[in-house]
């Protein structure tokens, strides 16, 4: 544990009392330099969270004023069929979209790890779906899947593959499929890039040793590749679960939560409950519920990360 982050050499050359004042000066600088960022972040995190908590145990109405209702909002929200519906839809999304993303991510990373003409173009091009705003992702895929004159219907019809247009966005399961495709399109680049970085970190010697032992390509994948990228797989999976919990822009622009409530995820439901129904108490209770859910995942992520990974003592 060499303490190379603080300039120790000079401090030790000084007499004790000067060494202390030197350390104090550095510590004071550290506090002062982090203070602006910390204040801003705390003001926008701690206070809002307290505000949401406070709001979630009150009922505000224009006639009766504001009164304390304890956990009533939570009970209303959690027993509401709309909430259960949105929670189920979110679960379905996560259970389908996250494994699809991770498996495709591994395949894409394996492909981009090979040498072939056009590889650089694919690597640079994959940044586009990731870089454009998620609401625009929703619009682009809405144009692809649109029922009455969408590009997919027009293309399939022109090729003679279908006789009449398919109602992609007005059939519940097809609409869910369409949203998952759009979500995958926007998230796959990051997943693939992170997994590619992990792949490239696996030493070649391991592959060579496995090849000398006569392991087939498939056997090498299970014995060398998969263990090598496992930490990154865990991180990516948890990150994408968080992202799936956060989907809002895509469904807002693409389906508006419909047809019916087929693509109304929890985030969309919170937004609708708060800003369409103007029920702040229920909305705040929902926000607290989803934040606690996310915190559970965050705890899992932190446990999955190697200790001292970010602020470790080695420079």
């Amino acid at each position: 544990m060499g303490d190379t982050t603080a300039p120790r050499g000079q401090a030790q050359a000084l007499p004790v009392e000067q060494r202390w004042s030197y350390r104090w000066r550095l510590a004071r600088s550290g506090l002062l330099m982090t203070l602006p960022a910390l204040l801003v972040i705390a003001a926008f995190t701690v206070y809002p969270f307290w505000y949401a908590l406070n709001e979630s145990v009150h009922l505000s109405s224009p006639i009766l004023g504001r009164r304390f209702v304890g956990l009533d909002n939570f009970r209303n929200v959690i027993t509401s069929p709309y909430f259960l519906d949105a929670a189920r839809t979110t679960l379905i999304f996560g259970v389908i979209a996250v494994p699809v993303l991770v498996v495709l991510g591994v395949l894409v990373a394996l492909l981009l790890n090979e040498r072939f003409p056009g590889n650089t173009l694919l690597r640079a091009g994959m940044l586009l779906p990731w870089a454009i705003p998620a609401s625009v992702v929703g619009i682009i895929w809405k144009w692809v899947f649109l029922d009455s004159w969408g590009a997919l219907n027009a293309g399939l019809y022109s090729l003679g593959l279908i006789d009449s247009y398919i109602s992609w966005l007005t059939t519940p399961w097809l609409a869910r499929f369409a949203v998952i495709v759009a979500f995958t399109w926007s998230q796959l680049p990051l997943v693939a890039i992170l997994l590619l970085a992990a792949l490239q970190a696996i030493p070649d010697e391991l592959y060579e040793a496995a090849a000398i032992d006569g392991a087939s390509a498939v056997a090498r994948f299970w014995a060398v590749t998969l263990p090598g990228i496992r930490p990154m797989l865990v991180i990516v999976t948890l990150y994408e679960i968080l992202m799936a919990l956060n989907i809002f822009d895509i469904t807002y622009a693409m389906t508006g939560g419909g047809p019916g409530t087929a693509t109304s995820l929890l985030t969309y439901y919170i937004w609708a409950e708060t800003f369409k129904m103007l029920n702040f108490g229920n909305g705040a209770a929902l926000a607290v519920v989803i934040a606690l859910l996310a915190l559970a995942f965050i705890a899992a992520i932190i446990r999955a990360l190697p200790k001292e990974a970010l602020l470790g003592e080695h420079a």
Partner: protein
Amino acid sequence: MRRRSPAQRALIAAGAVLLALFWFGPFVLVGIGSVIPEGNLLSFPPRWFANPPFLGNYRYIFTGEIPQTYLERGALRSMISQEVRLVPRAMLNSVLIATAVMFLSLTLGSLAAYAYARLRFPGRVATFNFILISRLIPTVALAIPYYAIVLRLGLLNTHWALIAIYTVLTLPFSILVLTLYFRTIPAEVDEAAQVEGASPLQVLRHITLPLSLPSLVGTGLFTFMLAYSEFLFGLLISTSARTRTLPVTLGTLSTNPDVAWGLMMASIVVGSVPTLLLVIPVWRFMVRGLMSGAVQ
């Protein structure tokens, strides 16, 4: 390089083609959609390529000149959404906000990052973890309080509110990336300057920042992109059409059932220009840096 069997080569080629279709296909379709006259777009069976490419949609966005193809069929005129004319204005709003966020986030971020990378002070690890975790709270959980706070401060419909919110949302990321980068600079450089009596602030300004230029550019552009793309808070805070950001203008347009899709597509192409310009530098400075960082 290993020799590949024909089957392996076919597999790689097929994968590459499929991937290229998936990545680029939707963009190509948007490009095509933006130059097809509305009548051809809506017709059944599709008549996409019946006419030569048509640039009237683009002209309308910038000049307000209603395309001939809409005049031909009177019924379609109502479908031209006036809001499409707000796209250039919305782009300007987004660029202004994102630029301010970029500078604020880099300034506050590099100050804090230097302290986390180089100085020891009480609460260092705890506050660093707090900053990172703060960003993992789902944004929708913060939406109601943010809205209420902005409303009370009288900042609804201003760019100030969005600049503040986006700075908070991007700051943890800037601090993380810059801290990791600053730590890769040998500490001996700092120590030499400190022997000369330089304060940490002076070291940061005259030594660390100039040495970190690639990382600063990458982080800054990435911050810009995040702020340029944000949707939820933009939707809540900007209720008037004039102050809206680009994602909000486009997002609300798409929920309008009467929108003219040709115009919508042309708006997407126009609105994506800043992203297209930024993608290559972001890739060069940031993603490659992340990847080489992970390799070490």
